[in-house]
């Protein structure tokens, strides 16, 4: 019985997240449209509200093209690996008190593990496509994820030190639910590092070198079409959601807000996550892309040393005060 209830929760979470993904694309196109003084999607439904559904149906019914000289097994598996890893990471996110599927003690490490796994999908796609553009995209993504994963992990060590736990629910509770208790204030440097690393981990602008359209056509997803391409897209948006949620939990006090909301305690959490998503899109409409050597220099020469210094300072402060 217990397992059935759990399965029910999982299905609900999955459905809600997929709906979120569909409308996140709409959200992004509308925001970028208005920032560039365009209207964005307008044709399907009122102000284009049904556009994501039309896109989904279109992708679903397209022919599943598998080019001739690809490594068929890898080519088929790559999108699935990407999406499965990212959806797996959703299991440990606490959306509200008690609204979490697996309240495990290593939640933070689990998310790192899953986001590391997601890079395999991209690498596999790049390699198995048997195309130079895809391959270069895959290699870039691999180097980028390895470099920035370290910075991201180190930036969250400060949060672990302050809360004394890896459990995401405990981290939220340790921030005491007040405005001043949020870890953004004592850990402002860590948040800066986390934010940059988060953009790089999700392959978003200004770190979207793996799919730099001016040089690599579309990077690792060049050879993909139809539903498999759409699955890569879903993985990217679920990844954005997971990273936004992680930022909200670790630095902005998770579900706590100025007043409790009846019936829907996750409201503040959702609002904070969408604020994060908005910034993601805002940056995409604003920033140019980094050059590759600049990307590596930023990751290894600035973010990692800064994160290490932050850990030392946090540990010393915690012992002294």
């Amino acid at each position, binding site marked *: 019985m217990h397992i059935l209830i759990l399965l029910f929760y999982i299905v609900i979470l999955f459905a809600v997240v997929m709906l979120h993904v569909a409308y996140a694309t709409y959200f992004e196109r509308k925001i970028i449209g208005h920032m560039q003084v365009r209207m964005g999607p307008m044709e399907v439904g009122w102000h284009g509200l049904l556009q994501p559904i039309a896109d989904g149906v279109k992708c679903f019914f397209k022919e599943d093209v598998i080019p001739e000289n690809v490594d068929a097994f890898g080519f088929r598996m790559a999108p699935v690996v990407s999406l499965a890893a990212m959806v797996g990471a959703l299991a440990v996110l606490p959306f509200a008190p008690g609204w979490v599927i697996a309240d495990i003690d290593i939640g933070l490490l689990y998310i790192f593990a899953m986001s590391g796994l997601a890079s395999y999908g991209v*690498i596999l796609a790049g*390699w198995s496509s048997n195309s130079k553009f895809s391959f270069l995209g895959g*290699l870039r993504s691999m180097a980028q994820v*390895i470099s920035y994963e370290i910075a991201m992990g180190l930036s969250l060590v400060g949060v672990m030190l302050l809360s004394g736990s890896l459990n995401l629910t405990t981290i939220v509770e340790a921030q005491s639910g007040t405005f001043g208790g949020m870890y953004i204030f004592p850990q402002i440097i860590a948040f800066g590092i986390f934010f940059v690393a988060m953009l790089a981990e999700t392959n978003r602008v200004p770190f979207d070198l793996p799919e730099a359209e001016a040089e690599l056509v579309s990077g690792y997803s060049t050879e993909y079409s139809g539903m498999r391409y759409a699955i890569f897209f879903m993985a990217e948006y679920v990844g954005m959601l997971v990273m936004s949620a992680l930022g909200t939990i670790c630095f902005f006090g998770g579900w706590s807000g100025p007043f409790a909301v009846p019936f829907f305690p996750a409201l503040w959490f959702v609002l904070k996550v969408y604020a994060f998503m908005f910034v993601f899109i805002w940056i995409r409409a604003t920033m140019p892309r980094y050059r590759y050597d600049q990307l590596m220099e930023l990751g290894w020469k600035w973010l990692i040393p800064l994160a290490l210094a932050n850990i030392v300072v946090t540990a010393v402060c915690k012992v002294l005060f």
Partner: protein
Amino acid sequence: MFIPIYFWYSAFVIVLCGLLAISLRNPVHSVLAVLVLFFHMAGLYLLLQAEFLAAVQIIVYAGAILVLYLFVLFLVNLKEELKVSAFVPGVWLGRGIAAGLFVLLLWALPSFTAGMKGSWPSAAVTQAGHTKALGAELFTQYLLPFEIAGTILLVALIGGLVLAARVGQADRTEKTARSAGQETTPQPREEQS
């Protein structure tokens, strides 16, 4: 009931993936088999309530080390397989030796006995949290071995850096010597004789 099934499933997949990793022709496929193997190892750690170890297994081995293996495979780009001369003459002799080793291993297996009970039986670990127990033990009782292991890793790191720097320097001096040589001695050697 669930736990033995899970154990046997994981054990089976680990053995299967191990076999696949050494028998698949494509090295990238072998790496992927090892990836699946690591995940099931992590599953076995979870069965033993070693959550931290399971997470680290995936982050370090699957997330970092295997990715580096893939990197090397991609950059080297083996067009043809390396042919190494056989270690033992005859295929069946080799198989016989392998089977003999396996039987020897099975024969030695019953002589394993459970070690001494430490200060952290699994009930105590569950109560304190695996990460906390591991950290406390590592940084108090085993601090010296921990630091020694850290130093050894640091030595390896610096050694790698020194070697890389030396190769880079050699390349550079060679290049400058070559370009300088071209400038100073444009005459071919044949004229001297």
